[in-house]
């Protein structure tokens, strides 16, 4: 057949597309269960990290069962607990929820029972950074006001700049901050130029990561507003 003719070209392109599509579809299907498991484990590790429980992929399932287990539920904007299974609450996809208006979202709550009997409420949050989504987990004390710990992660923020939100040094700042001021929701503000260590509602932003810092600030305010009714109960 004429190698430069239209017929050959079309045939070549069609065969190539079919072969490539088949291979990729097959690989994606075959690897999907492993990837899903990785994602779930990574999520559990993040959740536990917000209450300072370090875990690895090897022991996370066990630790999650021990500290949180079935104590996962969904609240609505009015702060009422919804009737859903823990697994369903765990699987709530925040990337979809975050696009809805505050009043229509479903808000998962992870209740963590620590060894010393204390209860922590872990709230997932999600928002926008500079290049893509950022998300995290904020653990509150029983007073539903003081932050016990927080962990953040991102999809593609700039390494060394915005990506610093996923470092311990940044996340440690959130410990002990409060989100209510005399019953008024003020969230935790990420302040450019820094704040004194004892400022109750502020943490230091990342130099060079202004848009990510701003995004994190907005994300916290957005989600604390959504959880406000639940937190005030």
């Amino acid at each position, binding site marked *: 057949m004429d190698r*430069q003719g239209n017929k050959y070209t079309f045939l070549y*392109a069609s065969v*190539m597309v079919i072969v490539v599509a088949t291979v990729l579809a097959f690989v994606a299907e075959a690897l999907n269960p492993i990837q899903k498991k990785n994602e779930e484990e990574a999520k559990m590790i993040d959740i536990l990290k917000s209450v300072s429980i370090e875990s690895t992929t090897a022991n996370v399932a066990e630790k999650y069962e021990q500290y949180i287990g079935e104590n996962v539920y969904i609240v609505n904007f009015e702060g009422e607990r919804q009737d859903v299974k823990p697994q369903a609450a765990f699987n709530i996809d925040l990337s979809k929820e975050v696009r809805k208006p505050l009043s229509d979202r479903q808000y998962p709550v992870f209740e963590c029972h620590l060894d010393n009997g204390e209860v922590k409420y872990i709230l997932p949050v999600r928002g926008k950074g500079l290049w893509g989504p950022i998300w995290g987990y904020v653990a509150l004390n029983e007073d539903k006001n003081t932050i016990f710990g927080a962990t953040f992660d991102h999809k593609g923020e700039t*390494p060394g700049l915005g990506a610093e939100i996923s470092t311990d040094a940044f996340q440690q700042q959130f410990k002990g901050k409060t989100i209510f001021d005399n019953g008024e929701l003020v969230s935790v503000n990420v302040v450019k130029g820094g704040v004194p260590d004892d400022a109750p509602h502020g943490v230091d932003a990342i130099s060079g990561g202004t848009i990510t810092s701003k995004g994190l600030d907005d994300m916290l305010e957005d989600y604390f507003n959504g959880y406000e009714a639940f937190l005030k109960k």
Partner: protein
Amino acid sequence: MSSEKEPLFSSKNLKLLTTPLGAQNPITVQVLGICSALAVTAKLEPSIVMSLSVVFVLVFSNLIVSLLRNTIPSRIRIIVQLTIVASLVILVDQILKAFAYEVSKQLSVFVGLIITNCIIMGRLEAFALGNKPWPAVLDGFGNAAGYGLILVIVGFVRELFGTGNLTFPGIGEVQIVPDIVYEWGYVDNGLMILPPMALITVGIIIWVQRSKNKDLVDIS
């Protein structure tokens, strides 16, 4: 076919492997692939993992294109090359997600950006389309290694002077500049983390290389 078979690592073949490391370096001499060299080099670890991913993609895309070189219709050859590169990149991404989840999270968007790395399309067009598979593999490896070499140097310099630490894959962050140096008044240069310093670091490497190898100096 010549009656005498060419040895796998003949001097001609070895040259394919070594010239991209120096005199034909894709970044410092051909000035290709600069975009990703700026983006991922704020830390050492992503630089290393990115280099390895590019090695994989370039070696295999060169190999596949070289195997198919006599069948590819010349009018759609760019599309064919792009499809091959894109599929390999998706493959790398999927495999990383399944078996090296942590690393894949770190590289995130940059893996996808390998598709747009000019070095890859450049080598496919300039070399793989006109050469046998084995030289094409060597050429791919050499060029990806040349790219990786610069990436690692830049990542090393930027992270060391920007944060005083170095991050290695599998080990994590290691503090290199000892505390006592900080007590003497040394301060990390935060500017090193910002993208412009990658350009300046690459510029310095180009300067050093050209002042040693006058053949590279373009007088026109």
